[in-house]
């Protein structure tokens, strides 16, 4: 019998829907929800989708060390990747370095990882940040680890596709250089999104609700995907799926 839907499960299913039909999805460090989403999309793809997870031994196809993921991306061999940000602004710039006047940051974040490179090269970059507050979603980031948009003279084959938070989904319109509210998660509403978002964005008159995963998706998620993700993210798998099982 299925337990109650965990908020993480909704996010995983929402992100997984953005990956259907792709050939190769890579997942970076500290990304349990995107990682679970990629593994869910793979489970549904009948083997067509390849998933490469950093930090995993079972789900990494690479044999040439740390550089291979980046070489793959530059050649167009990776269709989707995930990035987050201590700050994300309305032009989809992301800041993974810190708050304040760099280098004298008031709050220091872990660092830019591969973002400065992959954001420009991977066609479908999904921004993911669970915390949806005006503190995170700011008018302008204090430091651009990776730019959301580039001038025409910059060779760019990749960029932001959507921003998924704990409250909603935004699509990104590269032409307008703006986000557009695509759906609001159950239990949240459009006014609340406006209140907790520090940047301006477009929104339709009627905002749809984010689709809930069906029973088959949840079974897959709580069974096979939970086992697979536990190898790389044991604490996350125990907290989310362990709790879901017990419910």
């Amino acid at each position, binding site marked *: 019998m299925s337990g109650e839907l965990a908020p993480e499960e909704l996010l995983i299913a929402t992100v997984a829907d953005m990956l259907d039909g792709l050939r190769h999805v890579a997942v970076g*460090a*500290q990304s*349990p929800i995107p990682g679970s989403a990629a593994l869910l999309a793979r489970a549904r793809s009948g083997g067509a989708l390849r998933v490469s997870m950093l*930090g995993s*031994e079972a789900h990494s196809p*690479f*044999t*040439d*060390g*740390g*550089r291979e993921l*980046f070489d793959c991306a*530059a050649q167009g061999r990776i269709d989707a990747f995930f990035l987050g940000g201590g700050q994300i602004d309305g032009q989809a710039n992301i800041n*993974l*370095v*810190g708050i304040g006047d*760099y*280098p*004298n*940051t008031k709050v*220091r974040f*872990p*660092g*830019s*990882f*591969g*973002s*400065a*490179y*992959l*954001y*420009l*090269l991977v066609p479908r970059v999904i921004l993911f940040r669970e915390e949806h507050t005006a503190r995170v979603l700011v008018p302008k980031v204090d*430091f*651009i*680890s*990776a*730019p959301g948009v*580039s*001038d025409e*003279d*910059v*060779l760019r084959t990749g960029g932001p596709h959507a921003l998924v938070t704990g409250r909603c989904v935004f699509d990104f319109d590269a032409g307008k250089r703006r986000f557009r509210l695509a759906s609001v998660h159950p239990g949240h509403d459009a006014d609340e999104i406006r209140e907790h978002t520090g940047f301006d964005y477009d929104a339709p008159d009627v905002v749809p609700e984010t689709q809930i995963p069906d029973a088959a998706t949840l079974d897959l998620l709580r069974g096979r995907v939970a086992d697979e993700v536990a190898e790389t*993210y*044991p*604490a*996350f798998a125990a907290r989310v799926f362990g709790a879901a099982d017990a419910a």
Partner: protein
Amino acid sequence: MSELFTSVQDLAERIPDGAKVAMAPDYSGCSMVTARALIARGAKNLHLIGVPSVGFQGDMLIGAGCVETLETAAVTLDEYGPAPRFMAAAKAGTLKIIDGTCPAIHAGLQAAEKGIPYMPVRGIVGSDLLTHRDDWTTGTDPFGEQDGPLVLVKAIRPDVTLIHAPLADRNGNVWIGVRREMMVMAHAARETFVTAEEIYDGDLLADEQLAPGAIPGLYVSALAEAANGAWPVGLFGRYGPDDAHLRDYLERARTDEGFAGWLDEFVYAPKAAE
């Protein structure tokens, strides 16, 4: 054993203060036992290069005051959360941080292994990282096939690459399997110091299965046998992280006093007992 073989303490002595030291991330091969020996000998002013990031190893060395400069794409403890001594040092302004991005670090090392001054890298244009790096610039494709600027990353030549590996043989060949960032690190550095989990009884290069994953001894300056040498972060294919110890470390390292207590218990006391 040949003179190539030495003790962990000797490896730490041979990494001089101020050295540029390349290190692997926690999921690759970290010589944690040598990191503790560096702390115990009071190493100073090290310039750590995370290839491409550092984790607990970097946090411990930073907390112990061994590090002047940290060149890395990130400091990450993965699921364990923010790195406490790194965060404290960043807040206090006592650490010079050279912020980079993973592929640029790999590319800089690749330039060094080829003996060329720089390597072109895609992406990065438009990142504020570029404006803060005097060892990165931009150029264009001299053959005119690619439009737009390319980032040119100056070669990264570490004084020392310090790693832990599952196997080494008596000729100094070191097996690292698919963790080939350590191969590039060894090629790029002036000297490579290795601790090995186990000594392989034979020639790694004579085994067709093992040779493709082996760093030839010609790159290796010194080696020490150190079972469990990656404890507490773990070694790929061998053993996982010591979760209880790492959680205890995180709890203690939240404060200066707590971290000092951890150093006393796990770095200074074992050293004094030798």
